[in-house]
């Protein structure tokens, strides 16, 4: 299947033309953050304090990698379950976050916020951390080093594969893909 090439950061018109179900490959800078980092970012934003990296136009990848071996840029680095970040996500989107990469469902509040802020939610293939790490060229801890695997890393990725799950119109590919498959299957 044809994969749309995306160079980060994305222009608003590029973001808004992405559609649920599209296969994409990301090249550029993304930040990592999962549960513990989200809590810290959320608390800082709630207290009007500065977050130690810029959320404006950023993409966040929900991942807690394994430690890098001596010859590696990063260890295995596949997506973790996104719904655990739902509580924090709308506030991050209001502060300029433009994209999230994870796996699994988002709640209605997050979907509404994705639509309102015209951003995008992508999924990478869960459980393929060894394969996905080959698309990561550089990795540097930029915030909360005390969190270990949950620290915020800035990653340079090349052709990082993902699927658009929720687009800026609020279409949800988890719902649509399943309906589409069930319909097609009934005709097979």
């Amino acid at each position, binding site marked *: 299947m044809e994969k749309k090439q995306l160079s980060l950061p994305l222009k608003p018109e590029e973001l808004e033309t992405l559609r649920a179900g599209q296969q994409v490959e990301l090249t550029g800078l993304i930040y990592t953050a999962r549960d*513990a980092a989200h809590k810290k970012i959320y608390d800082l934003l709630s207290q009007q304090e500065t977050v130690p990296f810029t959320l404006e136009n950023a993409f966040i990848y929900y991942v807690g*990698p*394994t430690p890098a071996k001596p010859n590696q840029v990063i260890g*295995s680095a596949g997506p973790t379950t996104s719904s655990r970040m739902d509580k924090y996500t709308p506030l991050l989107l209001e502060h300029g976050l433009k994209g999230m990469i994870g796996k699994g469902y988002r709640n209605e509040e997050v979907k509404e916020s994705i639509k309102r802020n015209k951003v995008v939610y992508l999924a990478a293939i869960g*459980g393929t*951390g060894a394969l996905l790490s080959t698309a990561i060229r550089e990795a540097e801890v930029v915030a909360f080093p005390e969190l270990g695997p949950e620290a915020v890393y800035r990653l340079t990725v090349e052709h990082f594969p993902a699927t658009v799950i929720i687009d800026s119109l609020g279409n949800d590919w988890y719902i649509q*893909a399943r309906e589409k*498959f069930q319909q097609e*299957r009934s005709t097979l």
Partner: protein
Amino acid sequence: MKVIAYDHIVEQVAKLCQEANFDLGEDVISAFRQAVETERSPIGKDILLDLIENANIATENRVPMCQDTGVSVFIVELGQDCLIKGGTITSAINEGVMKGYKDGYLRHSIVNNPLTRDKSETYNSPAIIHIEMKAGDQLVIHMSAKGGGSENMSALKMLTPADGIEGVKEFILTTVENAGPNACPPLVVGIGIGGNFERCAYLAKKSLFRPIGQHHQSPIVAQLEKDLMKNMNEMGIGPQGLGGDTTAIDVKIELEPCHIAALPVAVNLNCHASRHKELRM
């Protein structure tokens, strides 16, 4: 009386933890290959092929197949005529886990206190260890590296006798439905029926240690496993929840006697990275 040195167990367990994370079992890989043949969704097929490629990279480069290298769960069959010299089996296993995870660059994923979320100071431990006493002098250690995402979507329900088999089926299928893409399908679904509240959860976990494709020895239970798998694969969830035939690659049931008032059911979901290894001494 057989005597096994404590340090020997530490070394062997450390090796087992790394092998579980680097080398996906042939049983799982052949289930993927089989699913590639039957999967009718093109993206579903691509995902299954990626899972095979990922497993190959992990084995070749000695890296974990998934960044969630899991909580280490052990089922130990300890023969009554087997003596561990130099310490307890529990501490030998925990020491082996710490060593295996640290030296193998596996992730430390354990918090000491679930409420304060303080990180445990012992690398990826304590492990969850179940000991079953056996006759004879053998020591068999079964290990599973169990991911958190699929564990989170697992569920337990105290049904009543009136709910019957239909109620049991409904609860199992609802659990899989609710998990959708979150538990990283294609799934291995472990089911415990009977016992009591905590026992049925253990049975569900224990069933996940059986090789993929090995059905329950009772033909009636084996049939129930097959029927449930058919139902799951008709849901259309598919690999990674992106639509497809392959929602589950295996369904496993363990049963035990229970109270006349009870019908406990536990569903322990496992992601496609079903990492289980065995060590015999």
